[in-house]
């Protein structure tokens, strides 16, 4: 059976099915989801490289990537990539002192451009689909000492290197409402993921989603929406989502491919025993 390899951040691997799971289900493909919560583009590119150079991708396999936001620094801890999200929202590792000393828009621009371009240069012909969960160059900063827009140095660099960026779909409305209309979380829910696949991913592949797939994931969405009272502890929502899915939709839960989640469970994270 051919394999679908998907890469990205929490928009690709989350506590409920994402576009990646929907595509794998619809195409009836074996699925290896290398998406990881909090992952940046440097980490995503490294994972794509790992899969291509180490595991090897067959001609009939499929590779898809949803690039992440640009303000992330990816690091490995012990045996796994750790997704820490934006440097601006992680005081435990970074914080004001670190940001003052090491953060610069230019650094962000060069690293993201370099790694996204490298993946396209190396594996562009193998990428069946790529999109971006955020606008390129978007500044996620909430750091009061950094202006909201990119500084002049970074803008100058974009003039020189911006042309290297592939033209992709930018999922700009991914987070514009609460997940399932009631959660204290704005990650795109199943409805939004289904919409992305239907309106963006599949048309670019010349495919149409099966009726059965639409029905299944629409039902999953609806059951999450209806279970508002179940999700009454906002802090526990990720765990509750998993619990809910496992109980209510065991076959969908299995699709999340937890053996390859590379989350805190520490399971064989970069593929060697």
């Amino acid at each position, binding site marked *: 059976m051919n394999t679908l390899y998907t890469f990205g951040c929490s928009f690709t691997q989350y506590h409920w099915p994402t576009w990646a799971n929907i595509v794998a289900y619809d195409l009836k493909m074996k699925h290896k989801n290398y998406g990881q919560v909090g992952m940046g583009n440097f980490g995503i590119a490294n994972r794509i*490289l790992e899969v291509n150079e180490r595991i090897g991708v067959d001609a009939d396999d499929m590779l898809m990537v949803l690039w992440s936001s640009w303000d992330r620094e990816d690091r490995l801890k012990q045996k796994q990539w750790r997704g820490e999200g934006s440097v601006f929202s992680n005081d435990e590792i970074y914080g004001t002192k670190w940001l003052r000393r090491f953060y610069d828009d*230019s650094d962000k621009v060069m690293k993201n451009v370099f790694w996204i371009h490298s993946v396209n*240069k190396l594996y562009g012909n193998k990428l069946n689909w790529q999109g971006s969960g955020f606008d390129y160059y978007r500044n996620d900063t909430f750091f009061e000492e950094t202006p909201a827009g990119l500084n002049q140095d970074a803008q100058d660099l974009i*003039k*020189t290197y911006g042309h290297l960026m592939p033209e992709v779909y930018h999922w700009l409305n991914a987070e514009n409402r609460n997940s399932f209309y009631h959660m204290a979380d704005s990650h795109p829910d199943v409805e939004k993921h289904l919409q992305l696949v239907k309106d963006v991913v599949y048309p670019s592949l010349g495919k149409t989603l099966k009726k059965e797939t639409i029905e299944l994931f629409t039902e999953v969405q609806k059951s999450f929406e209806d279970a508002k009272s179940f999700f009454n502890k906002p802090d526990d929502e990720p765990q509750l989502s998993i619990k809910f899915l496992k109980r209510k939709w065991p076959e969908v839960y299995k699709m999340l491919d937890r053996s390859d989640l590379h989350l805190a469970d520490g399971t064989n994270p970069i593929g060697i025993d």
Partner: protein
Amino acid sequence: MGRLFTFGCSFTYYAWPTWANIAAVDKNCEFYNFGMAGIGNVGISQRILEADCKFNFTKDDKIMIMWTSWTREDKIIGYDYEAGGSIFGKYPTAWLKNNFHYADIIVKNSNAIIATNQMYKDLILWQGAAFKNDFMEVGNTEFSSFKDYDKEFYNSLIKMYDVKMPKYEFIGFEESGNKFSFDCLNDSHPDILDHLSIVNKIIPLKQKTKDITVELYNEVKQTLTLKKCTRMEKAQKIITNIVNSNYKDTFAKAYSYEALSSRIT
């Protein structure tokens, strides 16, 4: 041969001509040195792409790379790379205790080197590593070796990447760190004579190149000794003056540094 592009850390671009400059003099071709003091291997990879963007590599161009220590983390501040060197000199111990892991540097360095080789393999004339031991800059004994419980994992990681890693020579430049450059300077970087001995092993040099390099070395050493110069700042001015005045057609032509900020639109 078309143009020559060289990449690496301070062992490639420094206050005096390095192996890269000597190679350029020998090849007598258009030459661009993207070496940068303190840069790491991820930064070196990024600089190769930068050069490609700025100069639009052709099949006739050649690239030479001197990879550096693995324990560096590259940052661009403003218009250029920060010459930070090892992360052990950059981050405090408390931060390192929580955030430094060998897996991080093994994966990032391996991927950067492999990606560069996949992208530019046809243009790479030569590549080597300045350090015999990739992790030698650790310095801080607390982090100087793999912890027992991780040793097996880290070694497996290195072995795993080794399949795709290019096979290159370890130059061992760090050995020159045991002496004063030009026998007088308060600096332990390899001097011109050390570089000549290295580049002579990399590519067969013309006798003319060897002669003029030794001549330059002698002139620099003699001047520094006469002026009792021990400080780098003063030495750099003296050396630049010698190169620009007396080696106009050779080293002066191949002496410039390519900054990130140069040639941007």
